[in-house]
């Protein structure tokens, strides 16, 4: 990983803000995402807890390395998916708008069912899907998707990163085996503030 010096950072910023074609691409992507979820989420404002979790979703992308086959093209966008009822509303879209991770644009996609998921890199599995969690996770087995969820015992159930709230703070529980199985490399830095757990056989 290249060390980003302040000077480089500033230069990268300028290139990003100065490049209008990137904006056009982003606009196109947003339009492709369809007017329905956009209109649906615009009105609702998520709780403070989900604002933090939205930021976490974005940040996870920075600490995880996907295998090359996850990104067929150099400009293939990094897709953050939400499965089930979306608790973030428009906030998640605002969080990632105009942002890039490892020089890739970011895209939010919302899925009703697991079968709908085609290209996806980070998948937030909503609490609404708690009942089918085991089934969802097993269906995603073998795909290079970082699964994140805030249902109780998410990581122990085979999810990769579980978001738990302790003393009013959001903490991470990480299942390294699950991530390894998905051929994802988690940065050691990510592990540091997290609690490592492993799958519980039921």
């Amino acid at each position, binding site marked *: *990983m*290249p*060390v*980003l010096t*302040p000077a*480089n*950072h500033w230069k*990268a910023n300028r290139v990003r803000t100065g490049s209008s074609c990137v904006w056009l691409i982003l606009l196109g992507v947003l339009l492709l995402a369809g007017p329905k979820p956009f209109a649906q989420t615009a009105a609702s404002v998520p709780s403070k807890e989900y604002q*933090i979790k939205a930021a*976490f979703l974005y*940040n996870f992308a*920075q*600490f995880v390395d996907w295998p090359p086959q996850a990104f067929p093209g150099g400009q293939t966008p990094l897709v953050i998916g939400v499965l089930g009822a979306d608790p973030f509303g428009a906030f998640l879209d605002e969080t990632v708008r105009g*942002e*890039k*991770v*490892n*020089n890739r644009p970011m895209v939010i996609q919302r899925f009703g069912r697991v079968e709908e998921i085609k290209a996806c890199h980070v998948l937030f599995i909503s609490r609404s899907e708690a009942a089918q969690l085991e089934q969802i996770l097993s269906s995603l087995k073998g795909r290079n998707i970082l699964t994140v969820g805030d249902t109780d015992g998410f990581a122990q159930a085979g999810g990769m990163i579980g978001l738990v709230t302790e003393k009013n*703070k*959001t*903490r*991470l529980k990480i299942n390294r085996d699950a991530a390894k199985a998905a051929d994802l490399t988690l*940065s050691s*830095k*990510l592990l*540091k*503030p*997290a609690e490592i757990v492993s799958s519980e056989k039921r």
Partner: protein
Amino acid sequence: MSLKDLPIKRKLMAITLITSGVVLLLTCSAFFAYEFFTFRQTTARHLSTLGGVIAQNSTAALAFENRDDARDILDSLKVEPHIVSAALYDKNGRLFAQYPAHLPAHSFPAAPANDGFRFEAAYLADFQPVVQGGNKRLGTLYLKADRGAIYERFRLYATIAAAVVVVSALVAYFLSQTLQKQISQPILSLAETAKAISQRRDYSVRAAKQGRDEVGLLTDAFNQMLTQIQEQNQALGQSEERFRLMMATVKDYAFVMLDPAGCVVSWNAGAERIHGYRTDEILGQHFSRFHGGDEVAPGECERILAVTIAEGRFEEEGWRVRKDGTRFWADTVLTALRDESGQLRGFSKVTRDITERKSAQDEIQKLNQDLERRVHERTAQLEEANKELEAFSYSVSHDLRAPLRHVQGYVELLAKHAGDTLNEKCRRYLRVASESVTQMGDLIDNLLAFCRMGRVEVRQSSVDLQKLVQETADGLQPETGGRKILWKHGPLPQVQGDPALLKQVLVNLLSNAVKYTRGRDPAQIQTGVASEVNGEVVIFVRDNGAGFDTNYFDKLFGVFQRLHRAEEFEGTGVGLANARRVINRHGGRIWAEAAVNAGATFYFTLTKSQKG
């Protein structure tokens, strides 16, 4: 003791030590200066690297808002004692975590400043972005380091430098102690030789040459000089020997050398003969002994030396006393002897015994004085006699006039009362008697005038002699009535004298000329200047008259002396005596040249007036 007076060994060592010390100090100073300027950069780089590591480690803590984790990461700075404080700010610029934990929040900047370093008074502050990969900024890391590191480092360097200086000084000391011998050894040996020579005065010693460098050249030159000194000493010794022999053999002169205080240091045979002391008796004695000890005025010998020192030479004649107490008249010459720098080394004293010459001179002087005294006595006696004679003459002349007037008066009365009764013969007797009385009156008058001349004061003034001669000749007109006389006057100068007295001289000489040319036709009378030497003019009065026999020349100017009979030429015989007296009183002379019947020339001298 200054560096100048140090022995050359120490001087060389001092120079080596000072040089190496200064070079070392300069090097250390340069090193310190370099360190001082580069250490800021080094410190900044160090802090930057440290900050980079911390920032990288704290990305996850910031990304997932784990303050405990962030604190743990910051706490790891404990190992770096110069980090005073550190803080993490989140992406919104809020203080997220701090180190050390106990510091109050206001000890940290309220918000992160621009990225980069800033040097504060005693601290170095650094703001670094916290970024994961090339992505969005997660927050800012703040680090604050004190500059104690610099001072700590400088303390270390100072210790090392001090150790280096001490070790170098020791090494330089031992090295220079060995190496300075290369230079100092030949010089020291040369100096040692020179010292030995100057102490023993043995100029046959030679210094050993140790190399062909400048010291070698110096040694050669030194040896050459020694050779020259030796030769000169030899020549000097020979010359001195000759001189000493000469001095020793001279017997008529006493050659004595005195030291600056006046004590005898050398004595020759002449001195022994003249002063009577043997050499061994007189050496070291003060020269006042020759002046007779007690007899000499106090301070006289000191005065003699002082004059000799001041003027270089002193000469006098005076009495000296021999050893046996007898005196002799000595001619002494003292000369001050000085060396090249003018320092007084002593005196040379040359004395001659000139007692014989002195007594001969004294004898001559005595005789001269005697003679002079006798002349004075005689002159005084003569003057006395002369005055008495004059007084006598005057009173006689004066007393003679009274009876003569009686005779005159009675002769005239007799001629008046009895003239008619007397016969022709008697009347002639009376007439001759009257004429004789008149002549005698003239004689007495002239004699009185002559006597007065001895007393009258001469009033000096400038006299126009030409005019005076003309007046005098004009005044003689009555006596020359009817005669043919050819006068020729001058030219005549202005002279110094009393006009009344000079007129008497001219009246006398010119009337004589008129008188003695009686019978000449024409008579010739001429006046003029015969010669002039040093302001003294010789005036002449010449006639073609009767002249006189020069055999009787000495009688010509005597009183009552006459060369002609009264029947032939009348006269009293006082005129020329008077003239001579006047001229003498003017400081001049008078004389005459003549031949019988061939005329006479009278000469007299006068001082020419300075105005004319």
